[in-house]
């Protein structure tokens, strides 16, 4: 697969936004940044299908829209199924000669719409092999309904349905390895990305659009309201997640897994791997973990992070460190 384009800052600035300003997202909203970056990487006519969630709500408040592409709001659970229908219809029209143009399809869904309620539709679409890009914008909880835990919420985070109290230190389960699940579907392209590295997000989006068949992009998109941090810190936190290996960046092309540059540096120079505590202490959803009663949870999170990081290194044929 040729990846000749560079996505220089100049190119990006000059390309008109397809996800425009004026939407109603909160200050410092990570998902809104993700959408803007991703729509900068489109290559031609594009159709967007959007599951219920923050980004659906904030981008299309009557009578306005932030989208400069054809856009459909589906239900919560079926962005991938809806994309399947669009892809199948376009394919049929092409076969019958009624359509000449190449049209890209992007399905956007949050972590609730992907890890939880939407995984059945996503798995089905991946198995059938429809040609579309599925973007998971992951802000690690149901933010639209007021911060409830999801399968994407990390261990130890306090949400309104996994509240930290005197006995229970927030969510007890670990984050579901959703991108690994998508790799197991043996689809042509799976990648993780963080909005702190916009060029990486753009390149991965473009690759996902170029492959024939389903592509899955998992973008970490911090949420100041739900993660409880100052709105100016979104990008810093998105970067720290990568530097602590809590959210490593990688891509899997036809089953070949490789680390992206930001994580590869950490793999090659382990002294650059920062402790998870530095990430956790930036967000008040974890603040109970900094108390003496729950300190051991930080060790658990470090252990799980290391375990998953080492597994990833082995998969990328890099020495387990």
């Amino acid at each position: 697969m040729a990846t000749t384009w560079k996505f220089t800052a100049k190119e990006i600035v000059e390309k008109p936004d397809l996800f425009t300003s004026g939407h109603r997202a909160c200050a410092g909203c990570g998902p809104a940044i993700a959408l803007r970056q991703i729509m900068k990487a489109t290559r031609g006519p594009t159709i967007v299908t959007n599951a219920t969630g923050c980004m659906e709500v904030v981008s299309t408040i009557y009578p306005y829209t932030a989208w400069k592409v054809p856009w459909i709001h589906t239900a919560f659970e079926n962005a991938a199924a809806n994309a399947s229908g669009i892809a199948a219809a376009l394919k049929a029209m092409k076969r019958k000669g009624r359509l000449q143009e190449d049209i890209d399809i992007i399905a956007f869904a949050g972590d609730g719409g992907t890890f939880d309620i939407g995984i059945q539709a996503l798995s089905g679409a991946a198995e059938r092999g429809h040609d579309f890009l599925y973007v998971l914008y992951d802000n690690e909880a149901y933010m639209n309904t007021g911060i409830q835990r999801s399968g994407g919420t990390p261990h130890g985070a306090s949400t309104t349905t996994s509240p930290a109290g005197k006995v229970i230190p927030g969510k007890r389960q670990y984050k579901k390895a959703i991108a690994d699940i998508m790799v197991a579907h043996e689809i042509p392209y799976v990648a993780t990305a963080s909005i702190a590295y916009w060029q990486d997000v753009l390149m991965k989006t473009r690759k996902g659009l170029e492959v024939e068949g389903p592509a899955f992009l998992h973008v970490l998109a911090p949420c100041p309201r739900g993660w409880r941090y100052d709105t100016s810190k979104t990008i810093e936190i998105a970067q720290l997640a990568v530097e602590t290996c809590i959210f490593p960046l990688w891509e899997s092309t036809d089953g070949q897994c490789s680390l992206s540059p930001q994580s590869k540096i950490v793999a090659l120079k382990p002294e650059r791997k920062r402790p998870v505590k530095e990430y956790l202490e930036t967000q008040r959803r974890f603040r109970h973990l900094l108390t003496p009663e729950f300190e051991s949870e930080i060790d658990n999170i470090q252990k799980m992070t290391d375990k998953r990081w080492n597994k990833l290194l082995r998969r990328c044929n890099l020495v387990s460190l």
Partner: protein
Amino acid sequence: MVDESRAVLTGTHFMSGDLACAEGALAAGCQFFGGYPITPATEISERMSRRLVEVGGVFVQMEDEIGSIAAVIGASYAGKKAMTATSGPGFSLMQENIGLAVMTETPLVIVNIMRGGPSTGQPTMPGQQDVMQARWGSHGDYEIIALAPSSVQEMFNLTIECFNLAETYRVPVILLADEIIGHMWERVKIPPAEEINVVSRKKPKTPTAEYQPFKPDKDLVPPMACFGEGYRFHATGLTHDEKGAPETVSAEVQTELVKRLADKIRKNAEKIVKAQRVMLEDADVAVIAYGIPSRAALSAVREARKKGIKAGLLRLVTIWPFPQELVSDVAKQVKAIVVPEMNYGQLVREVERAAKTTPVILLSKLGEEPHRPSEIIEAMRRAVK
């Protein structure tokens, strides 16, 4: 730090309808909540995630509403009083499993805080558009119970009533509230635990070898053994005989089962149905209302009386089974009936059926604003002119 005595927070509180619903569930002995976030019912989940744990119960946030109600069916068969709470789209996803709960005669409570539909509709706005879905949402013939609260106090009281009815009749019971009642804050009085009437499912007294899980008593409700209580039984969504054995071809078994599932509600309807009659004794015109419009209706009836219109109100607490007799009685007496609903005409169809020749006027409202008393008075005035 489990403290079971905290299940009933005796005293006077200022809380929202959603919170009062959660407290009612705890007071009724609910020990399991399986749910999924959805506006405007999320606060019930949030409250339960804290409070259930305090009293030794289990809160599980499921992956969707299908999982939520399926988990509730499991928890109920495991012997616990169980519930879920949702709104329109989630209620739609639950429909198949509501049928399963009807067929397996599983006591459980579903709270539906109705918002504007169809589809995603208006998530933060009130509606009463799921009235017919509550009755007919799952496929097949069945009867179900649904109650409609019209105050925060009733969110507490009727949630307890829902559990009692579910346990008595082994049927899913729906608390059909609207967004305004769910989000409104009012005073709630929670009585001492010993003053709260709590009903639990009847247990089999037969020896384990002779137990037939779907053999009804005279009230048409079979005693319920739960998992791990020593009885071996088979619960299935397939048509089954009294032993619980699937029977997929016999017309006789199908007829007997479907009729009994319906009749255990129909024949006990008089015991189930609750309604409030206000100034109906000498009324010329009646308002029949439930949920939030019934508050404006009460005000309208009082105002109308001052203006010389002989108005009365029948406030329905039970929506399903439909209070046919009560409505017929009112219809025989008055010249016209006004039905304010926050939908495009749902329960009004049942009122029309019961009212026979008495004219029935629908006052439909869709969207944010509930009915105003003046609109209801105007409708009454036109009706009796």
